[in-house]
């Protein structure tokens, strides 16, 4: 980009930083109101059960219980959902997964309520369970939601060319099966929400809510109120990563029902175990790939079958798996592709949106597969990707011709490969594999240091993974955003966006876009809290669309205002039509006269002349298309590309994978806030590493084993030695000055790159995530398969 920016591209401290670093920032649980009550949930230790009766007699006259809330108290919709209304607010007929809530009790003393909830007697009959997604579509499978007639949540087919012909023309065919695990978002702030009754039966909800507009829609439907009687305000959000959507809508609805019934503010806050128990997770996938390629490694055909376990509720499964169908081949041009993606219901914890959103799973599979193809062809992993990678004018699996944007796949790959000296390291490590095999797989290791020097147990590995990722929602849904800006008489600027901050720094990004356009410093702009009553719905903060959609709308609003201000300047300072006006650092310049005024003076003049100084900027995504029967269409209007290289040390005695360095090359278009962009890379890479080697939510007959951070392990400060972010900025025509997406691409590549690096170290390929100790050392899971053992 040749434009000379004064703010865009710089590192700017986030506007909410001072509040956060001094402990003054208010998260949902930090709000207190007079007369506020707490709510505690009633659950049963069952995965699938019919509820015969609930006996509240032992607590209903207890003075600590202000009210018992059941589905009888719901005036409107008793079932809710992001896409399908299949999740009961209170499950008083049937429980289909252990997180289900039957009822809740409300009162002043939360601790006492927790004691009392145990005294409620629930009579229930256990039902057989379905926890294996591969059995969900069998003819005699039990149905999780019998009224739907099938356990199929959604099915996305894709057909391009003729795969059988492609396989027939191939020199070599590989068939592989991969599995990925369930993981937890693990935002450090557990869920919290307060509902406050207002006048005229209206209600205000303040909470750790990712998408206030979605919460408003759901609360309104449950309360049977028009949207305008439900006001949703987002508190500071203590992390979300896609995870504070469905669950928070549900908690908002429950709190609102109680608040309206009791006419008092009602708070629900979850402890960590409750949060992990009830909130949705990342989909585990079973991924079957068949690939045919020529002697030189050109892929002729790919047949893909993906099965996602949606758990007990539909949630976002149709959209999550839709991204999978678009991106399942990886960023490769393949003539013949057949992909089938299904999500199914089971009694497992339900799964939904999580940063990455249906991409980390197929990337692990397809990038593992590419490395195997490279071995068969006898070339390095980077070379096999060059031979098949998408370039300008390439046609994707969905039949979309890539044009009108920088198709940066090969450039990001080349940059990563040369920066890390990839090929040379990869070849050197490969030579060492023979010795490693002897240690790991054939005989037990003696840990006596006298016999084996610890260093000799360590093998080095390097691996890479690449991806392309459609920006924003694509053909998933309507895609537009709005931003309101007005200038106050004192020159301060007020901004309101329909897109909500999720903790990632979106507010600062939008402020910077507007400040750049208006030529003011960012401290002149005040970002108002997101409030559903004050700005139009801009869709959710998901799909890495905050910057591409939000900053574009902020820039458009600023452009409109600036045009107004320019008119004032021209009149006030008697500039002729040929003079050029510029705004920079709170000053206004004319090409002919130099500095002519302060920004504030122009604003004052505008007010005196009654010129309107407010504007709403909008940004609407370009058209996309999709044929749901063939899986063909222009799925997304633009794409970003990424390449990550993992360098690891594998301890062949313990199976431990240590991450020495991860190099992350991404093409976010134009970087707006460098500090924020770097933060996205460091954070995303670290989450990707957790997905690769540490994290797994395991269940036993649907019951989650890891309900707190003592068992569910996420990366600490000590788990990755070095992360190197590199940006390849380009000329993108969409978004504000071409600013695209970054949040999710940074996460989706890590697990695949690490798996390839471990394979480079050991000479053994792994098909199941995560690569924890037992997977690396033994190649299988080490865990009890049945808790009903021994004397139990």
């Amino acid at each position: 980009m040749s434009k000379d920016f004064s703010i865009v591209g710089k590192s700017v401290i986030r506007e909410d930083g001072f509040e956060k670093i001094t402990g003054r920032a208010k998260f949902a649980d930090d709000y207190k109101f007079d007369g506020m009550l707490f709510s505690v949930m009633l659950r049963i230790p069952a995965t699938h059960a019919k509820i015969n009766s609930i006996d509240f007699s032992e607590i209903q006259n207890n003075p600590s219980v202000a009210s018992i809330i059941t589905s009888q108290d719901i005036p409107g919709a008793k079932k809710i959902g992001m896409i399908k209304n299949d999740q009961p607010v209170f499950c008083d007929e049937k429980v289909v997964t252990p997180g289900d809530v039957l009822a809740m009790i409300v009162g002043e003393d939360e601790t006492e309520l927790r004691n009392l909830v145990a005294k409620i007697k629930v009579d229930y009959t256990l039902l057989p369970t379905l926890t294996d997604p591969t059995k969900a579509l069998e003819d005699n499978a039990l149905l999780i939601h019998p009224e739907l007639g099938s356990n199929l949540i959604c099915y996305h087919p894709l057909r391009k060319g003729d795969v059988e012909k492609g396989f027939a023309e191939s020199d070599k065919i590989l068939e592989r099966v991969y599995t990925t695990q369930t993981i937890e978002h693990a935002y450090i702030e557990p869920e919290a929400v307060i509902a406050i009754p207002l006048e005229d039966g209206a209600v205000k909800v303040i909470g750790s809510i990712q998408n206030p507009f979605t919460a408003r829609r759901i609360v309104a439907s449950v309360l049977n109120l028009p949207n305008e009687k439900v006001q949703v305000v987002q508190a500071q959000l203590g992390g979300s990563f896609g995870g504070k959507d469905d669950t928070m809508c549900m908690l908002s609805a429950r709190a609102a029902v109680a608040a309206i019934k009791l006419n008092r503010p009602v708070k629900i806050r979850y402890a960590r175990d409750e949060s992990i128990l009830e909130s949705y997770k990342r989909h585990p996938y079973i991924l079957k790939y068949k690939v045919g390629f020529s002697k030189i490694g050109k892929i002729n055909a790919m047949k893909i079958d993906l099965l996602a376990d949606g758990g007990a509720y539909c949630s976002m499964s149709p959209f999550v798996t839709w991204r999978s169908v678009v991106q399942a081949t990886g960023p490769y041009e393949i003539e013949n592709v057949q992909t089938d993606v299904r999500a199914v219901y089971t009694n497992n914890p339900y799964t939904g949106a999580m940063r990455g959103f249906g991409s980390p799973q197929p990337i692990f599979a397809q990038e593992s597969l590419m490395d195997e193809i490279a071995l068969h062809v006898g070339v390095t992993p980077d070379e096999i990707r060059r031979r098949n990678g998408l370039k300008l004018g390439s046609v994707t699996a969905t039949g979309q011709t890539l044009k009108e944007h920088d198709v940066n796949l090969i450039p990001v790959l080349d940059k990563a490969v040369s920066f890390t000296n990839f090929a040379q390291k990869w070849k050197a490590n490969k030579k060492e594999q023979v010795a490693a095999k002897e240690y790991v797989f054939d005989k037990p290791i003696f840990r006596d240091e006298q016999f084996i020097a610890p260093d000799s147990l360590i093998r080095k590995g390097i691996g890479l993974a690449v991806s392309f990722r459609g920006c924003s929602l694509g053909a998933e849904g309507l895609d537009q955003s709005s931003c309101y800006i007005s200038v106050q008489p004192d020159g301060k600027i007020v901004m309101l966006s329909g897109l909500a901050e999720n903790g990632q720094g979106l507010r600062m990004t939008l402020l910077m876009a507007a400040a750049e356009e208006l030529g003011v410093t960012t401290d002149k702009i005040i970002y108002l809290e997101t409030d559903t009553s004050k700005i139009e719905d801009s869709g959710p903060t998901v799909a890495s669309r905050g910057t591409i959609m939000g900053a574009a709308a902020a820039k458009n609003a600023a452009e409109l205002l600036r045009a107004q201000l320019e008119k004032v300047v021209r009149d006030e300072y008697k500039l002729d039509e040929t003079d050029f006006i510029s705004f920079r650092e709170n000053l206004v310049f004319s090409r002919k006269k130099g500095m002519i005024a302060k920004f504030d003076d122009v604003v004052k003049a505008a007010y005196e002349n009654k010129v309107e100084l407010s504007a709403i900027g909008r940004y609407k995504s370009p058209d996309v298309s999709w044929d749901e029967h063939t899986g063909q269409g222009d799925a997304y209007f633009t794409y970003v590309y990424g390449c990550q290289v993992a360098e690891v040390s594998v301890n062949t005695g313990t199976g431990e994978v240590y991450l020495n360095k991860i190099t992350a090359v991404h093409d976010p278009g134009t970087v707006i806030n460098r500090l924020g962009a770097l933060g996205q890379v460091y954070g995303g890479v670290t989450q990707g590493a957790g997905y690769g080697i540490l994290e797994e939510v395991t269940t036993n007959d649907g019951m989650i084993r890891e309900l707190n951070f003592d068992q569910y392990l996420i990366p600490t400060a000590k788990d990755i030695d070095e992360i190197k972010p590199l940006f390849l900025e380009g000329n993108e025509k969409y978004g504000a000055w071409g600013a695209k997406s970054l949040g999710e691409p940074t996460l989706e590549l890590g697990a695949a790159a690490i798996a390839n690096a471990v394979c480079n170290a050991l000479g053994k390929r792994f098909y199941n995530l995560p690569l924890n100790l037992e997977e690396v050392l033994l190649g299988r899971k080490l865990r009890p398969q049945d808790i009903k053992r021994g004397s139990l």
Partner: protein
Amino acid sequence: MEIKFILNGKEVSTITEPSLRLLDLLREKFDLTGTKEGCGVGECGACTVLMNGKAVNSCLVLAAQVNDSEILTIEGIAKGDELHPLQKNFLLNGAVQCGFCSPGMVLSSYALLEENPNPTEEEIKDAIAGNLCRCTGYKQIIDAVKQTAKELKMEVKA
């Protein structure tokens, strides 16, 4: 029982259940909501405060133990609106995203620098290993602590 202790430099006393968690004592009785609860089992470090100069998980400390001690929370780190160098450097380095772990991170780092003004990178990582962060990947936090150590050292020299 009645307990007396020094809270952010001021002597305070209150009547409390001896078994109340220090975390709840701070949040509920003293309205110091900068101390956060993330797990309740001493794993995440979001509730970290300093007790007699040592970083502790306030979810694992009971009110009775606090008697006669000195407690420092995030609200006591800055002098009014003037940030402590650690806080300033957290912001400058982009070490704050959602901000939920930040108070605990600052206090663990503060305890480290009090004890060891010249820490190595490994020592910084050790000091914050008990504080989980899901947003930042820790890198910018480590940078912030490093930079603060350097600045404080220069200040001493000057």
